């Protein structure tokens, strides 16, 4: 399944480009100290609002800091931390989903009730509520993300687990006395991976846009750390005297989110080339539901 997915994916040029963009961005973020030409927090008031030069390709901001370096360091909160939050909610959702799907019965019923409750809160509203109670800050938004998103993954994973645990080879494994944990890791995790990947890449888009939106409203990361939404918020002050400062961080967001959008779409197609197989139907209903969650920043 996983192999087929990758094989299908590798035929799609756009998907490969997107994947490359994401990999490059993520790498640049991880290796920011080596990629960035300057210290992103190095203040130099003499260069306040300087336009681009050989030393500073994208110019300097209101404190004379290097915009390019800030853009590169900004990958960390804008993309990498979002990825971490996403992984945590996937993990949490996966554990809960597996428990529900594998043990069924009462456990399942209870877990699904909890999920229903979680899903009946509009995501954006709850993120705002959490920030409202805990106060502004990147970590609070990330906490809100994990708390709000796991239920989506739990539901999708439960459905997949239920489907696949009915399949012959899993039944056979069960009958031959292999432990539940082994069955889950060996047989069920790989096949649900694809579903999770589709939803995760979709969620990634909405989360990145939300983080940047909240930072834009001043509810996100704290200075002096660079973050794209925050850079836009800073640029907003001088939006009409120096519009060029809005350009770089804005485009960065558009590019990365687009890449995740394309990747998500390609994954969906690769997963299900005709978008139609008999067993794909049920799954698609669940995956389709995540559209609901796509509330934006």
């Amino acid at each position, binding site marked *: 399944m996983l192999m087929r997915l990758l094989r299908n994916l590798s035929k799609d040029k756009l998907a490969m480009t997107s994947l490359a963009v994401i990999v490059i961005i993520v790498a640049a973020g991880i290796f920011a100290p080596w990629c960035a030409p300057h210290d992103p927090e190095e203040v130099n008031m003499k260069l306040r609002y300087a336009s681009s030069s050989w030393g500073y390709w994208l110019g300097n901001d209101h404190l004379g800091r290097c915009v390019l370096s800030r853009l590169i360091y900004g990958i960390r909160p804008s993309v990498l931390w979002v990825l971490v939050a996403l992984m945590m909610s996937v993990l949490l959702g996966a554990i809960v989903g597996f428990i529900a799907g594998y043990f069924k019965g009462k456990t399942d019923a209870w877990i699904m009730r909890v999920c229903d409750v979680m899903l009946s809160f*509009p995501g954006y509203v709850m993120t*705002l509520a959490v920030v409202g*109670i805990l106060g502004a800050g990147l970590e609070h938004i990330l906490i809100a993300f994990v708390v709000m998103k796991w239920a989506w993954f739990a539901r999708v994973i439960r459905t997949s687990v239920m489907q696949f645990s009915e399949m012959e080879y899993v039944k056979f494994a069960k009958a031959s006395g292999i432990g539940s944990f082994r069955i889950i890791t060996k047989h069920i995790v790989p096949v649900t991976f694809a579903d999770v990947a589709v939803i995760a890449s979709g969620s990634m888009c909405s989360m990145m846009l939300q983080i940047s939106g909240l930072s834009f409203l001043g509810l996100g990361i704290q200075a002096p750390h660079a973050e794209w939404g925050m850079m836009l918020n800073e640029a907003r002050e001088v939006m009409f005297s120096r519009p060029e400062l809005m350009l770089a961080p804005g485009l960065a967001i558009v590019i990365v989110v687009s890449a995740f959008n394309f990747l998500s779409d390609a994954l969906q197609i690769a997963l299900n080339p005709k978008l139609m197989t008999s067993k794909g139907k049920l799954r698609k209903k669940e995956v389709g539901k995540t559209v609901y969650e796509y509330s934006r920043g």
Partner: protein
Amino acid sequence: MDMGSYIVKRILLAIPLLFVISLITFVLINLSLLDPAVVVLQAQEVPQITDELIAQTNEALGFDKPFVIQYVNWLIACMQFDFGSSYVSGEPVWSLVGPAFLNTLKLTLVSSVFIIGLSILLGVICAMREGRAVDKSVRGLSFVLTAIPSYWLAAILIWYLSVKLDLLPTSGMDSFKSYILPVIVITVSYTGIYFRTVRSSMLSNMNEDYVLYGRASGLSERKVTLHILRNSLQVAVSIFCMAIPIVLGSTVVIENVFAWPGLGRLSVRSILNRDFPIIQAYVLILAVTFVLFNTISDVINAAMNPRLRKDL
């Protein structure tokens, strides 16, 4: 199961959910580490807060009562649209939230009309031309458009249409002209998402047996298409039902950029002021709207597709 009893059962299911939601909303606000009396007094911008003042405020607002009693009192009051008084202005929360909700609803409904219209139009076009240049380019465009941060798009549009060309007001809610920019931004942000839903639902219907059968039995291509359209729109309807509360809940940034006197601005301001009764009302109202539309969407689905009624 007939439709009537399905609706009754579905509504009965929603009620305990609403209770849990109200409880979570209430607990959430009470999780805050701040002394509510101090928050109230600060929100009123009382320049100096004394201990007596705190004790007095606690008593006046019932913060000294046990938690359960506070919750029950709050819940009973909420059912009568009495969400308490704003910490800041002392006015009843509903008198602030009500009109703001209405303003946001207006924006949401107008935008939804455009989102739905455009989504269906583009979704059908793309599905009919699946894999062709139109389909590919519209889909590609939609991915890029949905990736634009709404405030960024808003800023560009304001700069170009309002300032450079002096066509539209920059902000506020004065006339129908004020709707144009926010509606464009919201429509651009969401159409990309929902048109894909229409498209894929069209596509999956095209592969259904009834289409093959219809074609085989010599129905005209137009009639087949109409069939597909009808069946696809059923799926779309329920998704659009959900789109309304989502747009309702995510106009926050847009409202702040366009100074729209709606819920989003009210909520952000309340968060900044720690005006908890308003935050509480905001979360509760939107969550209830969410559940409400969710229920409606399920009912519509069930009405169109009797098989689903058994799921309950």
